[in-house]
């Protein structure tokens, strides 16, 4: 096992280097840079541009240098903790991303937990009570959850929450806490606001996880090793959780790896609708305006987090299934 972890960790280093190059390359791909964009916008709206200032910025950030020089400059900064400068916000990238990344990770983790806590018992119940009334009910609800588009679910839940439960909806904080320092009250406020996003973002994931768990478990329950376990005189529930459930859990563990990217990419629209201060909307905007250091840092950090997620899920998988660690 230790062997496997070390191997898997070493493997992450080249991947990280590759990803950082790729993210930097991608944000440079559109023609021009933030400054040409900026000049064009200014001129289109009839304003005048201080060319000397622009030139100074260009010099300072080496925007006229070749790709590899710019990359090396950026990445050495990153390693020292300096992610560069956001042209659009006129602030260092560091000041912009950490809180949003933190919130994104919190929302993903909460969503993941929500998904697991709901999907696990329902999936196990559905598989062990196949074709029972409960199974049919969960199946129907599950398909509805899969079929309703998330932004619609968001709107409906926001309306319901506001109309019937008096929740302040939208955003992750009430106005009085938004700028306040962290405190227990602020945390509670966050939890209250996170409920709807969690349900919205988690519903389709939960529904598909239930389907997968049910199908896998039904498959596993029929395997000969379950008959063997029964022939040993063990209790049915003990057998269920020790043997087939453990194998059927594999898709659960895989979700650790892909929840985060799914949350960023697929759910940006939900974040926009719900007005969440997570990364999605800001990333979208920085990409549109070619705010390269901000966009690049976001992409890099999100990739790193995804990599970490995959790493965790791989380790867990190897722990659950020994065949992985010996192959």
């Amino acid at each position: 096992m230790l062997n496997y972890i070390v191997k898997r960790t070493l493997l992450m280093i080249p991947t990280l280097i590759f990803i950082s190059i790729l993210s930097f390359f991608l944000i440079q791909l559109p023609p021009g840079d933030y400054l040409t964009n900026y000049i064009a916008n200014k001129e289109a709206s009839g304003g005048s541009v201080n060319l000397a200032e622009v030139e100074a910025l260009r010099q300072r950030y080496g925007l006229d240098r070749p790709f590899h020089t710019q990359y090396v400059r950026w990445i050495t900064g990153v390693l020292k903790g300096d992610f560069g400068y956001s042209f659009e916000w006129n602030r260092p990238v560091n000041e912009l991303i950490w809180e949003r990344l933190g919130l994104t990770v919190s929302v993903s983790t909460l969503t993941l937990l929500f998904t697991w806590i709901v999907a696990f018992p329902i999936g196990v119940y559905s598989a062990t009570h196949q074709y029972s009334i409960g199974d049919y009910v969960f199946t129907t609800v599950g398909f509805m959850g899969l079929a309703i588009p998330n932004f619609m679910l968001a709107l409906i839940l926001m309306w319901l929450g506001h109309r019937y439960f008096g929740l302040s909806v939208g955003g992750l904080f009430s106005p009085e806490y938004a700028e306040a320092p962290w405190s227990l009250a602020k945390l509670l406020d966050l939890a209250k606001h996170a409920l709807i996003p969690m349900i919205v973002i988690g519903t389709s994931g939960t529904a598909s996880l239930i389907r997968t768990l049910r199908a896998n478990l039904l498959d596993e329950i029929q395997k000969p090793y379950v008959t063997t376990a029964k022939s040993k005189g063990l209790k049915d529930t003990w057998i269920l959780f020790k043997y087939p459930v453990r194998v059927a859990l594999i898709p659960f563990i895989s979700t650790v790896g892909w929840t985060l990217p799914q949350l960023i990419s697929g759910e940006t629209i939900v974040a926009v609708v719900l007005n969440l201060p997570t990364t999605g909307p800001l990333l979208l905007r920085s990409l549109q305006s070619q705010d390269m250091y901000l966009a690049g840092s976001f992409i890099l950090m999100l990739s790193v987090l995804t990599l970490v997620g995959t790493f965790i899920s791989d380790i867990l998988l190897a722990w659950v299934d020994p065949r992985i660690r010996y192959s």
Partner: protein
Amino acid sequence: MTRVLRVKDLEVCFATTEGTVQVLDGVSFDIRKGEVLGVVGESGCGKSVTALSTLGLLGSKGKITNGEITLYQDDGEVELSKLDPSGPMIRKIRGKEISMIFQEPMTSFSPVYTIGNQIMEVIRHHQGLSKKAAREAAVEMLGKVRIPHPEQRIDAYPHQLSGGMRQRAMIAMALSCRPRILIADEPTTALDVTIQAQILRLMRQLKDEMDTSIMLITHNLGVIGEMADRVVVMYMGRIVESLPVKRLFEESLHPYTQALLTSLPVLGSKKRNERKRLASIKGMVPDISRVPPGCPFHPRCDRFMDGLCNVHKPRPVQISPDHEVSCLLYSEVAKDAG
């Protein structure tokens, strides 16, 4: 010899999408202390169902509709067919009094636990040993089935062992609580020819050493000849003949047994080959949901007697103390008519 298990008039039905099908019809036999009882018959004749019913493992769709399965213990008898299949009584029998090994040693072990974990589990469950003591007992069992370096092999996962070693480990697990009866459902069919012979020899040795009785299920009459003391021949959920193996090759009476013998595959022949030769009995086994009237074998029988075999259900006839045959050729009905 004392008996350890008696099955009497066993009937088993399965609920299927097309309605209920009866797959066992009046199966009766004994298993005696220390013997190997062979059970043969073509695929689908109900060998596995017979084995599973003794352990109450027919599943939610299967049901014992008639008959008795009696286990004789030192301190009395237990009626297994009456026990709740998910209750605590039958669980005290499984793995302790009667244990079972299966055809596929790969899929019969869970791939995600070491064989040691799975063997120790049954030892601890039935004997309440500490982890350490259970481990020692498991190592000892692995040694008994001649797995080299058992102290190391105990921590191997099933996929790290060869097929033969896995089946040895399976035997070790099944015998670890010294059961009265070991049911082996085609234990060597999935293995190489040379390995087959080794495993069979091992089972014989351990049976004598541990004073266990074996019910050996196979479609290979060669294996029966090698291993068994007595044999029961099954056809479509019925026992058509039962007799001592040493008389099987010369004195068997049922046309089905004789047909099986003439298509006898050599011991250890590959399974595919074996199927082909068994199929050389004229015609095909009918679907179990459409059992022919009278004797179920009559459409394929060389010695079919019109008006008798397709009308009367043959009853078992006692030929000699250990030899019974269910065929109208040897029954009163035929003699009256003739």
